[in-house]
């Protein structure tokens, strides 16, 4: 039998926005709790820095609170927040603080068409050995660092599209709304980004 306690439903984004527009800090905190993980993860993958990602994530929510009065629900709250995050990223990259070169270069230089050439044998030596459990854990961490380094080599526009689609799991249409670009542009950015990553990560694709 259902009780009233079990029927407690989470507030919808719409009601939270309405309350937030009346300076309801509890509603603001609920929005933060709901979206901070997604926004932070996106910004971390974009910047490659936990400190920068946290700083930008805070700024996203400060901007949201500041501009919540002008939010007209023409897009979803999530779309709006990711758009703010993307714009902050662009600003940060323009300032030149975040758009530094790859912090941790890949061991294997990208050969472009390396599958058939002689460089393939050299690249496969960098694939970690996952046969033993501690090493496997370390290897997974190392692999994560390699993937992150490969992401940071992408141009920001391609990186954003790939992260939103393949890391955050967003549909093409959502990304088009966030980036304010046509659907075809989203698809081509994802395709080009994946191809570039494939070349960077080829040694790890075999595993």
């Amino acid at each position, binding site marked *: 039998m259902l009780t009233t306690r079990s029927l407690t439903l989470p507030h919808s984004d719409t009601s939270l926005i309405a309350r937030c527009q009346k300076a309801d800090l509890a509603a603001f*905190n609920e929005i*933060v709790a709901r979206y*901070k*993980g997604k926004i*932070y*993860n996106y910004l*971390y*993958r974009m910047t490659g820095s*936990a400190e920068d*990602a*946290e700083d930008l*994530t*805070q*700024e996203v*929510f*400060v901007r949201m*609170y*500041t501009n919540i009065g002008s939010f007209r629900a023409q897009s979803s709250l999530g779309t709006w927040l990711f758009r703010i995050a993307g714009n902050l990223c662009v600003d940060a990259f323009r300032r030149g603080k975040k758009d530094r070169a790859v912090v941790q270069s890949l061991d294997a230089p990208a050969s472009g068409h390396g*599958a058939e050439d002689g460089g393939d044998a050299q690249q496969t030596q960098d694939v970690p050995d996952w046969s033993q459990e501690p090493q496997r854990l370390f290897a997974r961490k190392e*692999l*994560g660092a390699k*993937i*992150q380094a490969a992401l940071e080599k992408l141009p920001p526009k391609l990186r954003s599209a*790939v992260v939103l689609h*393949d*890391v955050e799991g967003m549909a*093409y249409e959502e990304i088009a709304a966030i980036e304010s670009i046509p659907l075809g542009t989203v*698809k*081509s950015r*994802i*395709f080009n980004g*994946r*191809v570039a*990553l*494939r070349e960077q*990560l*080829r040694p*790890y*694709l075999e595993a």
Partner: protein
Amino acid sequence: MASIIDCKKIQPLLSEYVDGTLAGDSAWGVKLHLSSCAVCARAAEELSATVSLLRSLPREETSDAFSEALARRLADQVLKPARPDLGERVREWWSLPRVRPALAAAGALAALAPAALFFSARQPAAPVTEPPAVASAGDQQQFLDEVLEEHASYASGEPLGDPTAAVLLVSSPGGEGSTARGDRP
């Protein structure tokens, strides 16, 4: 066997194909091509593996201090009004009602000051005059006596022409036949 032209058409579709978002006919065409083209089939497998790698990335979490830092930032930047910059402060000061008349008066004085200095330099220096001393009653009486004596002295030469002279002569302290000045030669 697939042609190179087919491969060029197929390759851009592989990303959507591995996502499973390609529309029916296109998906069927790509699948048919991959079954006969090892190069494109390998490319599709690698793209799919790349996507798998990206999806395997762990989700990063904010630090424990995130909420507190956000609250502090919100309080500093939004809830507490920021100190206006210099331009805003000047505009705010200028809009005060007492400022503009005072500044206008000061400006007018500043504009007139050179002219005033110019004209004052051309004027001759005014003679320094001592303020008139307040005459006492004794001084007034002495002055009056002197005037009367002078008048009596002058009129004594022509007593007929001046009827008052006789009176003065009579009333003068010097007595009859003497002049008002008495001891004058």
